[in-house]
């Protein structure tokens, strides 16, 4: 009896472990094709993608699309774990497709010929494997750019400039507005190597050489832009608390929304949030990126990619074609307030529910970005090199080390990552 009790106790204690090990399993309905679709949400895109999934299932009654919404913070780890266990979803929204190339489905035999040509070439590179397989498409684009508090410009009696305006001119004007109105902040930029590269681009610099084979951090134009960025903090034009006061990404949304910031260098993903939170409190607008030797700015975006699995690849291809169609992208981008990656929609523009004027500034900027903006952003090592640049420049901004000391350390650390 005692043995039985001991055995039962041990088994009861091990049951939770067994549950962890097996995990939840899905059972497919035998008569229908099930497409497992994993999605991470930025917020406003959720109703948009849910509506598209519903529309697809109504049009294709024999197909069931199982949409799983997962937190972005867990996305890569989840997909890695699922894919390595042979349990990857059929389709997923991702930010870095290259992480999953080993598990990706080559869509070429399953989609119409010429698929991919309707999208911008830069982002398409990221869903094309080194062997030429096409594994997805760029679903939506983002674009860096500055916002200004127009009400503060009016209050200061300073007209908002138009045309090609250099960063120096923008920042000088923002400082004047700040002094005239007494708000605490003149200019702030997201603490992000991606946003910083947007400014570097307008100086003619970049993180990588255009062929992507080596770093371009020590080129005179990149160094000039980085030095300028550090000096903006030393001069008090940019506040220390955004770049020196934190780690990882730090934004200045609150300062801008509260009307305390004259100019905020961020990107179009802020538009929906600003439209709802600022409301009528003050007038705001997006303006083109600063123009020094060329226009600045950086693209970004999300991708939809297909994974190899047990589901009929033809059905996966059909679903991908539906999501990438002009109609679907128009519905999705207008609801979620994103920029489309389809060339035809970039040319024609999209009618958004609010602030189409602001979105059009970003749309127009897409076509003015230098080629190195795309080659930098779609470089496989961009994310990690951008983090190194961000952290080393922060050391110079905070005064921990000088700019001259920071640059070789940045170069050395980035070179190590390039190996």
């Amino acid at each position, binding site marked *: 009896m*005692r043995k039985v009790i001991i055995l039962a106790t*041990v088994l009861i204690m*091990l049951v939770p472990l067994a549950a962890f090990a097996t995990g939840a399993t899905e059972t497919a309905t035998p008569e229908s094709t099930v497409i497992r679709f994993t999605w991470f949400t930025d917020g406003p895109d959720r109703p948009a993608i849910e509506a598209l999934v519903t529309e697809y299932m109504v049009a294709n009654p024999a197909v069931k699309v199982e949409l799983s919404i997962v937190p972005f913070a867990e996305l890569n780890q989840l997909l890695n774990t699922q894919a390595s266990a042979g349990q990857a979803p059929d389709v997923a929204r991702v930010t*870095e497709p290259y992480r999953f190339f080993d598990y990706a489905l080559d869509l070429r035999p399953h989609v119409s010929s010429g698929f991919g040509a309707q999208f911008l070439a830069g982002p398409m590179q990221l869903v094309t494997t080194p062997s030429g397989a096409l594994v997805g498409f760029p679903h939506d684009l983002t674009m860096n750019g500055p916002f200004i508090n127009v009400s503060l410009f009016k209050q200061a009696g300073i007209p908002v400039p138009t045309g090609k305006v250099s960063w120096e001119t923008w920042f000088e004007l923002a400082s004047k507005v700040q002094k005239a109105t007494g708000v605490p902040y003149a200019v702030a930029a997201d603490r992000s190597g991606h946003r910083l590269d947007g400014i570097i681009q307008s100086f003619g610099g970049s993180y990588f050489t255009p062929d992507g084979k080596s770093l371009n951090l020590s080129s005179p134009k990149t160094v000039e832009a980085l030095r300028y960025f550090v000096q903006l903090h030393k001069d008090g034009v940019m506040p220390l*608390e955004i770049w020196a006061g934190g*780690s990882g990404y730090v934004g200045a949304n609150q300062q801008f929304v509260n009307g305390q910031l004259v100019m905020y260098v961020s990107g179009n993903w802020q538009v929906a949030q600003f439209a709802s939170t600022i409301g009528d409190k003050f007038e705001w607008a997006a303006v083109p990126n600063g123009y020094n030797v060329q226009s600045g700015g950086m693209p970004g975006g999300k991708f939809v990619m297909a994974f190899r699995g047990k589901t009929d690849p033809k059905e996966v291809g059909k679903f991908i074609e539906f999501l990438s169609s002009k109609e679907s992208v128009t519905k999705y981008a207008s609801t979620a307030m994103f920029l489309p990656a389809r060339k035809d929609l970039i040319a024609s523009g999209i009618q958004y529910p609010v602030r189409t004027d602001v979105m059009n500034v970003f749309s127009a900027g897409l076509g003015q970005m230098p080629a190195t903006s795309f080659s930098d952003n779609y470089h496989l090592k961009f*994310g990690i090199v951008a983090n*190194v640049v961000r952290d080393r420049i922060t050391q*110079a901004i905070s005064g*921990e080390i000088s700019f001259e000391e920071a640059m070789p350390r940045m170069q050395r650390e980035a070179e190590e990552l390039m190996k």
Partner: protein
Amino acid sequence: MTSARKKPLQIAPYVFVLPNLIIFIVFIVIPAFANFYLGMFKTSPIAPPVFVGLANFRYIFLIDDLFKRSLSNLFSFAVFDVVAIVVLSVVIGVLLNQSIRGKSFFRSAFFFPVLLSPVVVALVWGWILNSRFGLLNATLIWLGFKGQPWLLQPDLAKAWTVGVHVWATVGFFAIIILAGLQSIPETLYEAAEMDGSTPIQNFFYITLPMLAPSITTVSMLSMIRAFEIFDHVYILTGGGPGTATMMVVQYVYRAAFELDQQGRAAAASLVLFVILLSLALVQYILGRRQESV
């Protein structure tokens, strides 16, 4: 008959500890060995891991200034943190041991921060120390002084990381000292009083020597906690300004999740593991010595 009955009794204790042992092996022992193994690979999300031997260790010790900086930050944090905790816990313990009015209130008040989550502590202090809108600068300006960039100037930020951590944890250590004080026999003080000793002599010749085991415990525990520091500092300063308060755990996090260098992160965490293991062994040896005395 008797030996047949004894057999299951010998197995039973092992069976009862088995679930815990399995969890310990699966989640502690195996990952520790796997960590050492991973430390010998160069990893990348776009290529298979490459065996590099001790190159990751060579890189963090000989080339990477940030690892050296995080180690130096950690050691200086630990030294100031432990000294402040030991001194303050003795002072607070002695004060709380006095027969004063509201003794229970003061004991609760000093212990209260220990109950708070490190995240809450760091966020609240972050607001207090905010250079533009913080309570401390507002008070200073109201009194006619100039506000300071408390968390934006490297030396000030370093000092505040220690200060906030000490504030949050000293209550716990003061309770250990208080328990030690209450176990000192009253007769020792009575005998000393009869010999004409002053309160200061009592403190240095009776209290402190009798408190030695408690102080040793406080020193070791606070040192282990200091070397494990992450949450308080990460939320308060984010390791900044720059890397002025970056500790080894944050270095590991950055290497693994911001630079995709899991091998390098594993090597760095192994160094931290060795430091913590050494401290735990010292604590164990000192504890055994005290038991034998």
